[in-house]
C-alpha cells in the first residue's frame, strides 16, 4: 500500500460560480502539475461534466471520481462520489426530479455551460444549479448510500451552506462517510470547538473554483490502488486502509 494524494472537491466551468477558465483539459493539466492521484469532480447539483472529466483523467493517468456537490433542502452543501459515470447519471435523474423551478440568470449568477474537451459550448443548463433541492439531508445520504456512493457534508466549518451552521450539529444516524473541512481552516482549532467531528473521517478539499486553487486543499489516502472500493475502505478505515490524519 502507498499514499495517494486526493482533491475531493473541484468545480468545473459548469458551476455558475466557477471561473470560466475551469475547462476540463485545463483542470486535468493542473491536477497533473499538483501531483494529484485522485480528483473528484463536484459541480453544484450536476454530474454533467463527469463523463468527459473521467475520460480526460484516464488519458492523463489521474483517477477522476464522478461526483457532485448537492444543495439539500436545508441548504446544506454535501459532496457525493460514485463508482461509475453511469451511477452518477442515475443520481442526476434523482436531482432533476427534486430541482426547484428557478431559472438561472447568468448576468447575476454566472454561466452554466456544458462543454466538450475543446471548450466548445454544447449547451447551457437553464435552471439555477446552486438552488436547494427538495431532498432533505437524510434522504440524500440514504440514496447515495444505497447507490454504493460516498457521502460527505461539505466545508462543515463554513458560516453558511454547511451542516454545522445550518443544522447546528451533526444529526445522529446520518449515513455519512466523512466530513469535509475548508482548505484554510485550522483543523485542531476546529476540533477544540466542535469535538464531535472526531467521531468522523475528516477530509480536506480545495473547493476550487479557479485553476490556481486546484490541489490547494487535499487529503492523503493510504490504499492499495485507486479503485473505488479501496477509497471507500479508506473512508471506513477498513483492512489497514485509511484517510491520513490532517496535518493542521
Amino acid at each position, binding site marked *: 500500500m502507498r499514499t495517494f494524494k486526493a482533491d475531493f472537491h473541484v468545480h468545473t466551468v459548469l458551476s455558475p460560480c466557477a471561473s470560466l477558465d475551469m475547462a476540463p483539459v485545463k483542470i486535468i493539466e493542473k491536477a497533473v502539475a499538483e501531483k494529484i492521484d485522485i480528483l473528484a469532480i463536484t459541480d453544484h447539483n450536476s454530474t454533467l461534466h463527469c463523463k468527459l472529466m473521467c475520460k480526460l483523467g484516464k488519458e492523463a493517468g489521474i483517477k477522476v471520481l464522478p461526483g457532485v456537490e448537492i444543495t439539500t*433542502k*436545508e*441548504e446544506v452543501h454535501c459532496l457525493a462520489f460514485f463508482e461509475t459515470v453511469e451511477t452518477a447519471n442515475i443520481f442526476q435523474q434523482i436531482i432533476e426530479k427534486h430541482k426547484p423551478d428557478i431559472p438561472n440568470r447568468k448576468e447575476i449568477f454566472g454561466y452554466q455551460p456544458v462543454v466538450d474537451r475543446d471548450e466548445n459550448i454544447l449547451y447551457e443548463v437553464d435552471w439555477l444549479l446552486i438552488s436547494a433541492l427538495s431532498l*432533505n*439531508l*437524510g434522504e440524500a445520504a440514504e440514496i447515495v448510500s444505497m447507490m454504493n456512493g460516498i457521502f460527505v457534508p461539505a466545508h462543515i466549518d463554513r458560516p*453558511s451552506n454547511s451542516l*454545522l*451552521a*445550518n*443544522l*447546528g*450539529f451533526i*444529526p445522529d444516524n446520518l449515513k455519512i462517510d466523512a466530513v469535509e473541512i475548508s482548505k484554510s481552516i485550522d483543523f485542531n482549532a476546529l476540533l477544540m470547538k466542535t469535538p464531535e467531528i472526531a467521531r468522523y473521517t475528516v477530509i480536506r478539499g480545495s473547493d476550487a473554483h479557479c485553476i490556481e486553487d486546484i490541489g490547494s486543499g487535499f487529503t492523503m489516502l493510504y490504499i492499495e490502488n485507486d479503485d473505488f472500493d479501496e477509497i471507500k475502505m479508506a473512508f471506513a478505515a477498513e483492512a489497514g486502509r485509511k484517510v491520513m490524519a490532517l496535518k493542521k
Partner: protein
Amino acid sequence: MNIAEIADRLNFEIVCGSTGKNNMVTWGYTSDMLSNVMGNASEGNLWITMQSHKNILAVALLKELSGIVLVNGHRPDTETVTQAEKEGVVILATDLPAFETAGRLYQLLKENEDIQS
C-alpha cells in the same frame, strides 16, 4: 400567552407535539440557521423558521423554547413528527412567510403585554 392561545388567535395549525400546547411564550425568535438559534434564542421563545429537519427539536429542547412555527407552508419531515411527539416539542404551521408570521406574533405579544401591565 400560551401556544394554544397563539395558535388560535393567529390561525396556526398545531401539527405535532401537542402536549406542549400549554407552554408559555415569552417572546419570538426568527432564524433558519440552527447554529444562530443555539447561540441567540432564549428560554420560552417561540421559534419561527422554515427548517423542518429533526435537528430543530434538539435545538428547541436545548434552548427550552416554547415551540416552533414552520412558515411558508413547510411541514415537518416524517422523522421530525415522530420525534416531536416523543419529546413533546410542539410544532405549529402556517402558510404565511416568516416576515408576516413574525409581524403578527410581535403585535399579539405586545398587545398582551400592554393588557397585563
